[in-house]
């Protein structure tokens, strides 16, 4: 479904990603693990053409996206939830979700009620403004906004950053349920291994802008050296 091939990304003079190859199959769920500064966020932004200067191939369901702008990529079915969430502070929770639906053009999106149901925490907050939410609530809204247009692939960038453990568990449950129920693919960048394992089937490890390991979680477990070398705390 989503195929990234030979992706190079630059910020000004610095070369951040070096020939990254990555595939997310239809309804697949894939993690990218890596330390701070390893290039996870740059990769996510590059796929949406939202920041870095990029060279390389990006295809979604066979369509070449290389020349498309960010908003076209969004309308074609890629949805990025950035690490800093970026809720629209002056809109209510409901409007935050509806604006994503309205902006998605021809995509038949999801039903507002059903999405809100998936996040038990959000129900009572529907009329609140984005600026009145806590970090965890904002993250829930950001994910909900991300799935509203029913994307082909949801890109979640470090969603657990700064969240309390109990919220992390709720979020994991919601993400898995949404992806299963609506057949949404997932590309997740994380540092929290527990969350990544709970949400995904495959794992890639990125280090200095290069993919240094790819495999299933079982394969990952069988390679403690990889874990130690690239992720150890």
């Amino acid at each position, binding site marked *: 479904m989503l195929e990234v091939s030979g992706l190079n990304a630059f910020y000004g003079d610095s070369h951040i990603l070096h020939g990254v190859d990555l595939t997310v199959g239809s309804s697949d769920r894939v993690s990218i693990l890596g330390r701070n500064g390893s290039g996870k966020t740059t990769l996510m932004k590059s796929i949406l053409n939202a920041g870095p200067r990029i060279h390389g191939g990006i295809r979604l369901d066979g369509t070449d996206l290389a020349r498309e702008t960010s908003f076209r990529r969004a309308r074609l079915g890629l949805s990025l939830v950035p690490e800093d969430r970026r809720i629209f502070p002056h809109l209510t929770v409901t409007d935050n979700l509806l604006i994503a639906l309205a*902006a998605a053009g021809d995509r038949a999106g999801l039903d507002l009620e059903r999405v809100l149901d998936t996040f038990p925490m959000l129900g009572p907050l529907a009329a609140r403004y984005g600026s009145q939410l806590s970090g965890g609530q904002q993250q829930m809204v950001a994910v909900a906004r991300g799935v509203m247009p029913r994307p082909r692939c949801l890109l979640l960038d470090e969603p657990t950053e700064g969240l309390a453990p109990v919220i992390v568990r709720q979020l994991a449950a919601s993400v898995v349920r949404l992806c299963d129920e609506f057949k949404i693919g997932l590309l997740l960048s994380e540092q929290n291994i527990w969350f990544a394992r709970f949400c995904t089937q495959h794992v890639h490890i990125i280090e200095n802008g290069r993919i240094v390991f790819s495999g299933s979680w079982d394969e990952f477990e069988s390679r403690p050296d990889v874990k130690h070398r690239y992720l150890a705390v």
Partner: protein
Amino acid sequence: MGMQIGFALFNGLTVGMSIFLVAAGITLVFGMLKILNIAHGSFFMIGAYVAYSIIGSHPDSTLQLVFAAILSGFVLAGLGLLLNASVFQRLRNIGEAYSLIATFALLMICNGATKIIWGVNYHSVSAPDALAGAVIYGSFFAPSYSLFIIGLGVLTFLALEIVVHRSSVGKIVRAIAHDSWMANLVGINTSRIYALVVMAAFFCVGMAGGLLLPNQSLTPLLFESYLLQSFMVVIIGGLGNIRGAFIGAIMLGLIEGANFLMLPGIPGILVYVILIGFLLWRPQGLFPQPGADTADRVEGMAETEGVPATMPPKSLSGGIVAAVLVVGVLASMPFWANAGFLFIVGFAMVEAVLALSWNLLFGYAGLTTFGHAAFFALGAYFVGFLLRQDTGIPFLALLSGSLALGALVAFIVGFVAIRRTSGIALGILTLSLGEILRRAISYSPALGSDDGLSGIPRPQIDLGPVLVDLSSERAYFWFLLAACSLVALALWSFTVGPMGRVLIALRQDPVRAEFLGIDVRRYRLLAFVISGAVAALAGALQAPWAQIVTPEAASYLHSTQPMLNTLLGGSGFFWGPIVGSAIFSGISYATRTLAGLSEVVSGGILLVVVLAAPGGVLGLGSRFSRTWRIGALHKRPAVDELARVGKQAVGGP
């Protein structure tokens, strides 16, 4: 008395609503693009001229007036669409100071084009019969046209308020205003919305131009009457906020009314005083918008900018040869140049010194001010006034006095302003101070009011054994050349010395400078004081050259001259302002025959420089020479790293 107060306030309200009709567009564009469009007053003027071309001097009916206004709105919307694609979108990625200056270039182009298309003559348009009368209610008397304007203002406000705050389009617009990056990522075609908003803003201003046509003197100076006041309105209200602009407009109108009652001798001064107090109290305005607080943005430098050299070059010989050559050619001019050209060159030298002093703030200390001409006028009036009085004070003492006066005033202004404001607020604050000075002068009979001081005698300098008589044009020109060269040399030594290095550090990164133990505020104030002193000296030198000083010396149009010169020459080079002054003077000399042409050409060049070569003329030159140098370096393996780096810098293969 009660009648009079009521009438003044009603008039004030009419003024306020007319201003709002213009200010709405400024605030819309700023809210979306974060560009403070200085040219907006000129677009208003173009709107008025377009409507005038349609209806002529005597509109038959109110309907015809409205129809012409709407048509003018469409014309301007088309212009807006064009400018959005060609200029505004490019300004979003460059530094704030540059985008302000680019819109100023637009202002010059518009004003010049207006003069070329419609001429410089005065036109007046009468109100249609239906609006020419007055409504009388008991002892209250209101001109119908004023009521018409107030009604329109309120209507426009309500329409914008509903669209922006209540409609779904408004939600999208505000989402982009808050976070265009994220808005794009959820699938909003942000560039299309930008274009729509710019078109809407231009439509409003074009329509306002038409509707406000009656009772207005239509001249190429029309832009000015609305420009500064609409800025005040949007700044008081909080940039980018429609409600704020509406409240700001009402406040401004009432202040104007109060001014009329309390200080009838100096119209329009109260509003500046209140604006300054307001800026110091609440620099972000009544309703600050997220993202509108530009103080942080100015702190950092745009990628494209460079900084001037921080040290003297290892070998001075090349520089000395160049300097001797330039000074030599200038010194020989009285022998071969005609009087008119010599006069312009003298002006250019003074303007170059003024620009050098402005760039000490902009290129070195990282402060953008819009009121530099105030210091110039201070020095010019100080020397002009005392020379005319024939006090017998030696001329060199007068010059030193102007330096001290400039330094003192700069210290007082800088002490307060630098502590409280930065970014746009500092720019508008300095602009207001300049405007207050200009108005104060033009209403002081002792300083010649609007006519200024004329017939300023050229002095003699008594050096003990020798008496140097500067009364001839030639003698004063040489003195001017010597003085300007000396000032330039002194400033240059200052900037390549340890103090220059301090300023360049805090220009690039004030936080790092603070953590080098540099008291950022203190050094900014130092730069402000030196800059003010030198600007006053430039004014003092010019007064005997021109032999006349007018309040225009303090006007904001004059304040922008050093900015244009600096930007054109290259703010990242000490000598940039001088190169820019030379080029600008050349342009205005070459185009002096056709009114408006010089503005169009100067503005056009400036716009191209800002958009395509933010390093200025010298920046372009050094880019080419660097490409050449890197090529030569390639042959030496030891500098591989530098070569690689250089290649990226110039974007070559």
